[in-house]
């Protein structure tokens, strides 16, 4: 039995190209074509296809948003994002949204039919060109978001001195900056850590181990 496919792209030229490709390949049937994400979502709901190919940048609803909704409404439909962006952000968001494949538009098109068959069988696929950046990106993502990383080197020096009980003047002198600059740093630290007074700031800094506390 051939695989039932819906294609969504706001460029007629691309749709006709894909149609041509799958007409030559065996075992596919294009059951619907959509011009935007909203259209694609409704078609999938009506037709429950085996596969849907979604462009990323489409009017009304972009491909990634559409993927999210389709995954929710038709969990059996496998989603392939068909994009011209190689940014790992798009790729990561696409998979988070429930896509099984991320295909680049300038990829060797011969590969498309076998890839779509594979993802219909439950496999996943990312175009080679995008793979490396995704790995780097995921490492990068793990690094971020610790509270400590939100403070600059200078701010960490200042926070440590605030916790040590030093006045703005003393801090400014020690770090060879103007008192006003020190005051601004102090203000920025407080804004960033969402604290409104020094006592809370000090407690917060100690509780989250943003500073070292020495007991004498």
């Amino acid at each position: 039995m051939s695989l039932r496919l819906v294609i969504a792209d706001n460029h007629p030229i691309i749709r006709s190209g894909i149609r041509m490709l799958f007409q030559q390949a065996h075992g596919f049937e294009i059951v619907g074509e959509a011009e935007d994400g909203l259209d694609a979502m409704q078609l999938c709901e009506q037709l429950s296809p085996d596969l849907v190919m979604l462009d990323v940048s489409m009017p009304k609803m972009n491909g990634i948003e559409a993927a999210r909704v389709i995954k929710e409404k038709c969990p059996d439909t496998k989603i392939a994002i068909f994009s011209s962006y190689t940014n790992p952000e798009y790729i990561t968001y696409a998979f988070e949204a429930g896509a099984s494949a991320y295909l680049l538009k300038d990829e060797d098109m011969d590969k498309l039919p076998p890839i779509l068959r594979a993802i219909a069988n439950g496999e996943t696929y990312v175009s080679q060109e995008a793979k490396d950046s995704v790995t780097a990106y995921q490492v990068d993502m793990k690094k971020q978001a610790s509270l400590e990383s939100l403070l600059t080197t200078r701010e960490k020096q200042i926070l440590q001195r605030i916790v040590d009980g030093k006045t703005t003047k003393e801090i400014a002198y020690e770090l060879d900056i103007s008192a006003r600059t020190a005051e601004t740093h102090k203000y920025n630290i407080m804004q960033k850590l969402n604290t409104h007074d020094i006592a809370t700031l000090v407690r917060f800094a100690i509780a989250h181990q943003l500073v070292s506390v020495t007991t004498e």
Partner: protein
Amino acid sequence: MANILIVDDNKQTIQQVDELLCSFGYSSLYTLEPEFLFEILESKPVDLILLDVHMPGEDGVSLLKKVKEHPVFRSIPVIMLTGDTDERLLEKCFASGAMDFINKPIHDIVLKSRVKSALSNRDHILALRKKSSSLKNVLQIATMGMWEFDCSNRYMKWSSEMYQIFDRTAESFPSSIGNFFHVIHPEDIKIVKPYLHDLFESNKVAGPLDFRIIRPDESVRIVHQQAEVLEKEGKPVHILGITQDITDQQRSTALQHAYRRQNQIREEERERLARDLHDEVIQIFSMLNLKINVSAKSGCSSESEYCWLRDNFQSCQELIHTGNQTLRQIINDLYPSILKDLGLAPALRAHIRDLNERMNLQIELHVSSGLESWPAEIELAVFRITQEALNNVVKHAKTPHAQVMIGQRENILWLQIEDQGQGMFLEEMNLKSMPKSLGLFLMKERVSQLGGKITIHSQLGQGTSIFLEIPHSPIERK
């Protein structure tokens, strides 16, 4: 200590009053000869004059008049001393500007209380005068004039600031309703005429009104007009009006609007260009790629022919690929569609990664957890500011190291960009004046348009730090 001058031809009165005043704690001066009055006033500061009514030579009343007509000394309060209880004389004294009177023989308690109240009255008047002069300053600064219309005799009075607004003098341009009409811009007559008609004929105020006036030099100013009808027993008596020259304010807001609009147009234009390139050119590339694949297969009768064609097509595909990459870079520089598709944090991440790769930098991005979505205008502004600031790092800071941090607290989105580079000359940028770098000025403009604030710190050898906060509520992304 108040200085009190006694003018009396009677030595005993002077002696008595002098002693009493002394015992009350005042210092006093005196003269037996009225003609020396002005000489004394000119040589010593005097806070109060006690003036005898009946004196040989120049009598008290005419002297009082002279004091009250004097440009400087008229503000000195005068208490008349008299043994006479003639009502007409008293009336004459008050009419000439006397503040009070004391009957002879002088009673110490009466003297004490009248002097005290005269001095405190004087203090109040001085304070009032001070206030009115500062009010005048305020009016000047606000380019605001006041006018008053008497409903009974239809007389109109303008304050001096009114003449300044209209750039005319009281002599050349008597304040009248008619003249009011003469200065109105012809295009605004239609709206102003009914307004002034209601005001002066029916004494009805139809809210504030802005309109244009023309000065004698033909320059056009915009004025803001407000009036209030004062009634007595249900009948209009006076109309008080304020006319303010708001040309400068209007121009600067118009400038701000124009700037904001220009920004919008530029972004829209960039977005349109990027979209056109993406929709038209990129798709053609993609399509070419597809076609090459398909025709390579379908156009060949044998496998060897296919291989030959394929090799040729391969180089075409490589060219297409290179063209594609270049074009994508251009599109992305024009407008980051990732910002619209995925939001601020992914867009910043993509931009910084790209910059690091292209320029061999080590810029770090830290996004605080729980960063929500913000209105498109704010996200775009923050993105553009980051772009600009990082461009500065590349161009001027001469360091590969910089940190970008973004987070939110309650209803404030904050962004910080800091480098450890060579810093700028100014210890602290005064952003009120146009700083040397137009980029920084535009950053500041963008932030202030969104109601936010930005601080920039830079010290030679200490790097540069930009911290900005924009107040708004996060929105829910679709």
